[in-house]
């Protein structure tokens, strides 16, 4: 029994050591593993104007304006607290629309405008047929509340900013 017990202890020790090491490493890298910054987080970024970074948030309703060349687009990215104006020249992904999440890569210029080189659409965790989406929209317009499924299905209201 002793060699078995010893091997068991070794395996558990390996798991513990690797787990602790991974936890410490991930904790240390926490800031660097961020894929994008929210509009409110931008202010806290050091040397923000010199860095190439990603800005993520929702495209503000009614903010999308296209220039006459058909390629340059202006829109605002918001987290419902802070709003950052974005300029982008290029082709937008299919899912890009007002009220949807986006991740833009680029630089914040001195005037506080974000000059994007790439814009990616960010999908949220909600999946439903178009009829249900339409019904939810109608209900929320009538009731003025956040759309929610009833019964066994629940939406995580507001968890996805």
């Amino acid at each position, binding site marked *: 029994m002793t060699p078995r017990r010893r091997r068991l202890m070794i395996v558990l020790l390996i798991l513990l050591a690797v787990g602790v090491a991974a936890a410490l490493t991930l904790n240390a890298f926490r800031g660097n593993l961020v894929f994008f910054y929210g509009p409110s987080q931008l202010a806290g970024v050091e040397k923000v104007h010199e860095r190439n970074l990603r800005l993520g948030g929702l495209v503000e309703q009614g903010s999308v304006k296209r220039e006459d060349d058909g390629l340059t687009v202006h829109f605002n990215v918001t987290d419902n607290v802070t709003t950052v104006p974005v300029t982008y020249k290029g082709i937008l992904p299919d899912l890009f629309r007002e009220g949807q999440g986006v991740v833009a890569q680029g630089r914040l210029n001195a005037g506080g405008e974000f000059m994007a080189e790439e814009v990616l659409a960010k999908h949220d965790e909600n999946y*439903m047929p178009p009829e249900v989406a339409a019904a939810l929209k109608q209900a929320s317009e009538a009731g003025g509340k956040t759309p929610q499924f009833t019964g*066994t299905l629940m939406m995580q209201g507001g968890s996805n900013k």
Partner: protein
Amino acid sequence: MWVWLHKFGSPKYFYNVSGKILPWVGGATVLLILVGLYLGLFASPADYQQRDSVRIMYIHVPSAWNSMFIYLVMAAAAAIGLIWNIKIADIAAAVSAPIGASFTFITLVTGSLWGKPMWGTWWEWDARLTSELILLFLYLGYIALQSAFEDRRTAARASAVLAIVGAVNVPIIYYSVQWWNTLHQPQSLGVGMSTIHASMLLPLLLMALGFKLLYVTLLLMRTRTEVLERERNSAWVQELAQALSGKSSSDQVRSSNEQR
């Protein structure tokens, strides 16, 4: 329980019992995947945002769950083999790796195919995508380490350590979308909560169950083959082979099940 476990650890007992279970598991796998595919690809509605691209989810998500689940099974089997010296556990861990690697590969490819039209990119180095890629490398490293040793016992011990160490990556993949800002969407399913409409959830769950059973089927088949090969000099395999050699080759597959 311990007696039963020890019995199951004997290659001959495992071979006999798994031969009886296999047709049932295999049948259920085919049925679940066929129904799941029909519901997912034809009968379920398109998504309000993604339209028909949402159907990639019915392959992508079950594969992704399997890629993590199989790794945990593999690491657990490898640890059991390492600690208690159980042959069947060593075999189960060794044959799981290529299956798990395949599901990981399917996850990455389907995710990429979905990402191009939806996100606008094939690949981004976000935490979820990167950690899943590391999972593929862990599987490949495990397979490479297995074949690097002539002696099976040494191979099993060395690769078991890698499998156990790599297990720490699985919770990282799972929680990556909660811990960090990622391009990948947060999880839609949890205990008692779902942000997927019921008409899409049913085919997804059927496919997930079907994929799990597909793993069990493949695991049993590959373990049985490996047991025969490793035990080829033992009396019971010799008997089995002698009983078979009298029959015509076309009957061999079926008769191997009827022999017992």
